[in-house]
């Protein structure tokens, strides 16, 4: 206690310095901030939409594209169903928003109807199947989605898109965006701060549908470009190496089977890459395909464009891999975010792009800010009145605590909303609780007749048990809510966790160092709180 170890002092000084440096940009004018040398932090706190407004995007879910995709899938399902029933057919395709097929043998029409009715579509929540299968003249069969089913699919696509967008722009849950459905199939997105709307658009607007498909090496590229494709293949625009690829239609592995994606650098070339990991199903399938196709190429296709088509040198059974493309460090990072968040169920088209002002009026913000500042000052005054010199030590620790919290929030670009600041005030009050626990313990020990030095020694070690138990409990809840929650719940957990760690550190270690120094300097006979 009295011998303040050197590493502790270094830790305290470093923490205070860190908090100071990372909080400093918030009080500097922009011109000074820009002229700071490069190694100093420049990021400021990101204030919420309620305090400073931000940028606003309005998107429309492309329901026509969604419909087209549903029909394409229906065509493939019909093809599989008829093949399995061993029925010959011709002219399978989409006509007037319906799947249309001609059955070659008139006697096979009935069995075909039966096979299609059994295997196509799904049961809707409202009852009944979501597709109708009917006959048409000339041995034809029509398969159509009922209109309710299309509406339900569109509504589901909007809901899913909102979740995907939320994960993309607010992975950590601390950005406090405002994402809502508007009308039937539009999504409005407001993100706080002067965040570059172009950057926001790049992340939100991309569908990010990732597939791994085998390259058809036997196909003639020139023929393919004129539309003569081998059956079951498709033509996909390519990269710098090859302008077009003919790939198998079947997607062997898709982006949905990824469990993680990170940006990094290739160990040999040093180029930016995206590494990924498959889930169980994906790993198994990828392993089987790469084992069966050594020496051939597979194409990694993102939003209908080949980003790379590596050769399979060895079977990849470990369930992870990397995508090498024409990436910059930033675009690799963006792709990793997109892959983690998942693909949009349908393309989005941008409708509107605006800036929005703060949700709250300036006078409301001013009144609230003053009232919260009074709260902060009240804590400090009260703790100094209650504990005298030791209260001053606790107040100093509290100030470092505020700097650390604001510094970490600036660094991680977490968004501070008005309610968030009110929560911060309560965090500070709870941080003071650690000091109260220590000082009350020290008082007990001193009243029980211990010498000041022993009272301090025992008080700290005894109180530390309570402090750690209480804060570990809080930390457990924060970590769990961060892990399993999403959106603002995650953000809340993140801020809580920052507060727990900085509070324990400042309230225990900083006051300990300060009291240690004071004790050595004055050699007191009694403690000021006795």
């Amino acid at each position, binding site marked *: 206690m009295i011998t303040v170890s050197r590493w502790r002092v270094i830790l305290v000084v470093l923490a205070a310095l860190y908090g100071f440096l990372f909080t400093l940009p918030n009080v500097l004018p922009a011109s000074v901030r820009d002229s700071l040398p490069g190694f100093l932090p420049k990021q400021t706190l990101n204030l919420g939409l309620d305090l400073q*407004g931000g940028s606003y995007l309005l998107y429309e879910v492309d329901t026509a594209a969604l419909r087209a995709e549903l029909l394409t899938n229906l065509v493939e399902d019909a093809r599989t169903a008829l093949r399995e029933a061993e029925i010959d057919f011709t002219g399978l395709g989409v006509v007037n928003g319906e799947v249309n097929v001609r059955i070659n043998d008139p006697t096979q029409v009935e069995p075909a109807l039966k096979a299609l009715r059994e295997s196509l579509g799904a049961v809707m929540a409202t009852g009944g199947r979501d597709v109708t299968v009917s006959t048409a003249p000339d041995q034809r069969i029509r398969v159509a989605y009922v209109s309710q089913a299309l509406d339900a699919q569109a509504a589901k696509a909007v809901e899913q898109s*909102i979740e995907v967008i*939320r994960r993309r722009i607010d992975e950590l849950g601390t950005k406090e965006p*405002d994402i*809502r*459905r*508007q009308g039937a199939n539009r999504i*409005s997105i407001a993100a706080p701060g002067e965040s570059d709307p172009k950057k926001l658009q790049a992340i939100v607007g991309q569908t990010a549908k990732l597939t791994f498909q085998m390259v058809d090496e036997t196909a003639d590229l020139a023929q393919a470009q004129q539309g003569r494709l081998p059956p079951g293949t498709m033509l996909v625009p390519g990269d710098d190496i090859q302008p077009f690829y003919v790939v198998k239609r079947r997607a062997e592995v898709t982006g949905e089977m990824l469990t993680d994606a990170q940006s990094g650098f290739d160990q040999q070339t040093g180029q930016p890459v995206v590494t990924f990991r498959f889930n169980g199903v994906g790993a198994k399938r990828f392993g089987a395909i790469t084992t069966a196709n050594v020496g051939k190429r597979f194409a990694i296709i993102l939003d209908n464009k080949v980003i790379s088509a590596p050769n399979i040198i060895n079977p990849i059974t470990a369930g992870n891999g990397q995508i090498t493309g024409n990436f910059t460090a930033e675009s690799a990072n963006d792709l990793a975010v997109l892959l983690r968040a998942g693909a949009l169920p349908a393309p989005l088209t941008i409708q509107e792009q*605006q*800036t*929005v*002002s*703060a*949700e709250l*009026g300036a006078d*409301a913000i001013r009144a*609230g800010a003053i*009232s*919260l500042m*009074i*709260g*902060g000052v009240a*804590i400090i005054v*009260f703790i*100094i*009145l*209650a504990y*005298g010199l030791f209260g001053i030590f606790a107040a100093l620790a509290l100030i470092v605590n505020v700097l650390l919290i604001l510094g970490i929030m600036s660094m991680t670009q977490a968004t501070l909303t008005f309610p*968030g600041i*009110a*929560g911060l*005030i*309560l965090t500070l009050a709870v941080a*003071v*609780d650690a000091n*109260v626990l220590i*000082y*009350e313990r020290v*008082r*007990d020990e001193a009243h029980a*007749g*211990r010498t000041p030095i022993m009272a301090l020694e025992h008080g700290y070690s*005894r109180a530390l048990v*309570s402090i750690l*138990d*209480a804060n570990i*409990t*809080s930390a*457990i*809840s924060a970590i*769990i*809510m961060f892990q*399993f*929650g*999403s959106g*603002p*719940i995650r953000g809340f957990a993140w801020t*809580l966790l920052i507060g727990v760690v900085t509070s324990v550190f400042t309230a225990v270690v900083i006051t300990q160092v300060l009291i240690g120094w004071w004790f050595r300097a004055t050699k007191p006979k009694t403690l000021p*709180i*006795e």
Partner: protein
Amino acid sequence: MPWPLIRLLPREFHIDFVRLAPFAAIVSAILIAGSIGSFVVQGLNFGIDFVGGTAIEVRTKGPVPLGELRAAVPAAGGHDAQVQGFGRPDTAIVRFRTEGSNTFVAAEQVKQKLAAKFPGMEFKPPVVVGPKVSGELMSGGFMALGIAMTLMLGYIWFRFQLQFGLGAVVAVLHDVILTLGLLSLTQIEFSMTSIAALLTVIGYSMNEKVITFDRLRENLRKYKTTPLRDVINKSENERLSRTLITGSTAILALSGALFLGGPVLFPLVSTMVFGVIIGTYSSVYVALPIILLWGVKRNDDPAEPLKPASVRP
């Protein structure tokens, strides 16, 4: 010299906390019944964050008088009003929630009242906006909270005993029910911020429980033959000064925002103040009585290495 003020607090308290427990149990039972009753009868007043509402883009000749508009929307019947400047100074977006099932008619009425109050204001057709909080967010949040509570119970079980963990969880649930009851009774708009307030209440309450148990555990090891009831009383008297100081720090810190923070902060801060009070109360009068009724294991704890304070030199 009265400074530091801590010297004004007596060194020892002798309050029979446990004697009041039966009365507290009755009070808690009444409050819980009232909360559930209010919850069943009128539920929570879910705000625009949860149920969505209507958005109208407006345009004025000069700059939009945002402040006046903010005050006018609630007067025109639009709840949870949000007014934001939108792109240009003469354009703003107004969001609000209306009562009743026919949103379209209600929104039209709000629009007409605003048109009467602000002559020359142009309105775009109202559009329906969905909730800010999606179902997935809520269900995920509840699951996360459930797992977090279970693991906290597990940690307290590991550090203390099972009955401590259950006592803590029951007491925290007591606080959650009462807080929701208060929100239901006052019909304060239940928003995303209310969720944050509720989580804060849970966090503060759990913190109090652990601190309470810690002193009890220590004294149980120190006074192995003293009846549990007396050990509880002794522990609570010993840590009363801490409870008073921490509680008043928290309430003092929030009182600025409570009285001067204005209508934006009031719902949040009043919930937090309520949570601080109820969290302190339930530590003593919900968590500890559960332990008292259930009983604790006394003998297999290792003996306290330090001698009791009374026999110290």
